[in-house]
């Protein structure tokens, strides 16, 4: 396989978990809630999926467990932020810490224990196309689900009534409540649903991408998802582009090493994070102005300049 197609295949493989988490975070942020606990939702999702897949021998049951666990942890964030008015950024990190602790407590017995994972499935016909077949159509089922999720999310957020209500919860709360809708209920739904998708992203990481569970295996992907959502301005197709960019940067390191380039592995490991910061810098200014009102309150405690 050529370097380019290897990196692009890796982009989809490695980017999918971030795509799930980023799509989930797009829902939450559209409703005006930032969830740095996305990292934690991915962690509990990854462990729950791995544990259930290991016990039941059924990766689909694992994926469902990841979904539920991610949503449950996001529910904790929603409760303290919406009901107790805790600071969103700080509380998100506390929730991450909770996830980190719980997964090391309950995950220790699953380290190096085998689990029935998803296997790549080559789509008949499309999968045998040159180049594109390998890059897009030879993946695990959760990756195919994510292909459908992106346009579905676009439609939900921009074209559906539900999406309108969601954006109103982030943008024009007074309009929403004067029409008799509960802002808080919509925000709850958005945050928990976002956590479910992050949990599914964690599941993709443990039972499709890595086929393993180890402590703190998410390694900042949840934070990257939050960053991607910022520069993508919560638009699903741009979230996908940002996620695959991170995935490509992840895939670059093993691809170069396999070709005998003597570059230090840890210098290469920094590339994905550096890429995301650089993209934030390049696209940052334009995007910040487009954030919903509710988010500006969080992100701009003090204005720039």
């Amino acid at each position: 396989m050529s370097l380019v197609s290897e990196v692009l295949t890796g982009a989809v493989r490695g980017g999918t978990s971030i795509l799930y988490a980023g799509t989930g975070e797009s829902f939450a942020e559209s409703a005006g809630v930032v969830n740095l606990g996305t990292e934690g939702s991915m962690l509990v999702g990854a462990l729950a999926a791995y544990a259930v897949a290991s016990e039941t021998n059924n990766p689909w049951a694992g994926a469902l467990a990841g979904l539920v666990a991610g949503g449950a942890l996001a529910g904790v964030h929603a409760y303290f932020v919406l009901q107790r008015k805790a600071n969103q950024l700080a509380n998100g990190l506390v929730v991450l810490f909770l996830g980190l602790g719980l997964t090391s407590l309950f995950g220790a017995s699953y380290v190096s224990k085998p689990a029935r994972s998803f296997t790549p499935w080559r789509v008949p016909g499309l999968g045998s196309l040159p180049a594109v077949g390998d890059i897009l159509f030879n993946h695990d089922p959760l990756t195919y689900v994510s292909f459908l999720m992106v346009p579905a999310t676009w439609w939900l957020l921009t074209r559906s009534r539900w999406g309108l209500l969601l954006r109103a919860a982030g943008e024009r709360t007074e309009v929403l409540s004067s029409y008799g809708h509960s802002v808080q209920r919509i925000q709850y739904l958005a945050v928990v649903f976002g956590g479910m998708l992050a949990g599914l992203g964690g599941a993709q990481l443990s039972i499709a991408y890595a086929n393993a569970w180890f402590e703190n295996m998410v390694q900042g992907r949840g934070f990257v998802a939050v960053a991607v959502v910022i520069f993508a301005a919560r638009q699903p197709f741009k979230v996908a582009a940002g996620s695959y960019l991170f995935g490509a940067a992840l895939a670059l390191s093993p691809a170069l090493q396999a070709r005998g380039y003597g570059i230090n592995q840890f210098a290469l490991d920094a590339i994905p994070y550096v890429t995301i910061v650089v993209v934030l810098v390049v696209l940052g200014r334009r995007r910040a102005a487009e954030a919903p009102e509710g988010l500006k309150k969080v992100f701009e405690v003090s204005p720039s300049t």
Partner: protein
Amino acid sequence: MADVAVVRVPRREVPAKVKDGVRWAVALGGAAVIFGAFVLAKGVNPFEAFSSMFTALGTQTSLTGIALQASPLILAGLAVAVPAKAGLVNVGGEGQLILGGVCAYGTSLALGGSLPGGVTLVVICLAGALGGAAWSGLAGVLRLKVGINEAVTTLLLNYIALDLMLFLIYDKWKDPNGSGQPVTAPLRVAERLPLVGTTGVHAGIFVAIAATGLVWWALRSTRWGFQLRVVGGNPEAARRAGLKVGLLLISAMAVGGALAGLGGVTQLAGAEFKLRPGFLVSYGYIAFLASWLARHHPVRVATAAVLLAAIAVSGDSLQLDSGLPAATVNVLMALVLLAVFGWTQHKKAAA
């Protein structure tokens, strides 16, 4: 509506202090019960777990351990508190601690023992503080010039800092006599922090205490501290009053990063003497929690840091006695924080 005078008759209530006390007790008790339930789910008797955590705290080793952990935690906690006064969220403690250690070690290597040990120690402290300040200052500049939220950039910079350190200790700085382990050669003996009396505690704890006092004084009594608080309270008003908001925000971030960087140096020059892959892992996050626990008041931040250090040390005994992973105490820390977040809001609503 304006014509109707609403008269509120205050109800006779339990004194506020008693109510507060009850809320604290319920919140922290609740955290302990939930933690106990999780521990029980792992098949460990929660009462035995708690008692082993408590009894271990009194021993000499534990007290030394708490003092050792407290030095970097206090400094990294202050690194969160100072920017927070200006309304900024610094989650980059991890990266700033690491950069402090890396810059200090690199400076010591570059000097190669050409200066007297004491002088080198001072120089590497400055280098570490500068390294931390540069790392957090970068996030501050990006916030001002590009408008990216500093919480997100400081988080991402943590991972870059870690990879930078790993790159150095697996490659250029790897100890040739280290039997293949990814660690650096130890710092020269003359460049290390002295121990306090006959204890195993190094002088870094005094650096941390002095920094706490200094930050407390600077925030309370200097012009800079006053202006920071104005910016944190109402940036628009601060700008209209002619304050240099941009400069203030960046200086708050840089001072924070310098404190965390110093924390990295004290750990290097006082406790570990070499850089290794797990250098100060998760100290930055625990320090962040300490600062939020204490609502960014310097003296209380230091107290909270000692408290969390005690929880962390008691977690080690949990690991030894009950066989639970050391990171289990993260659950307890998070639950305590959530209890406090939930509780403080009650207080605000009542006021």
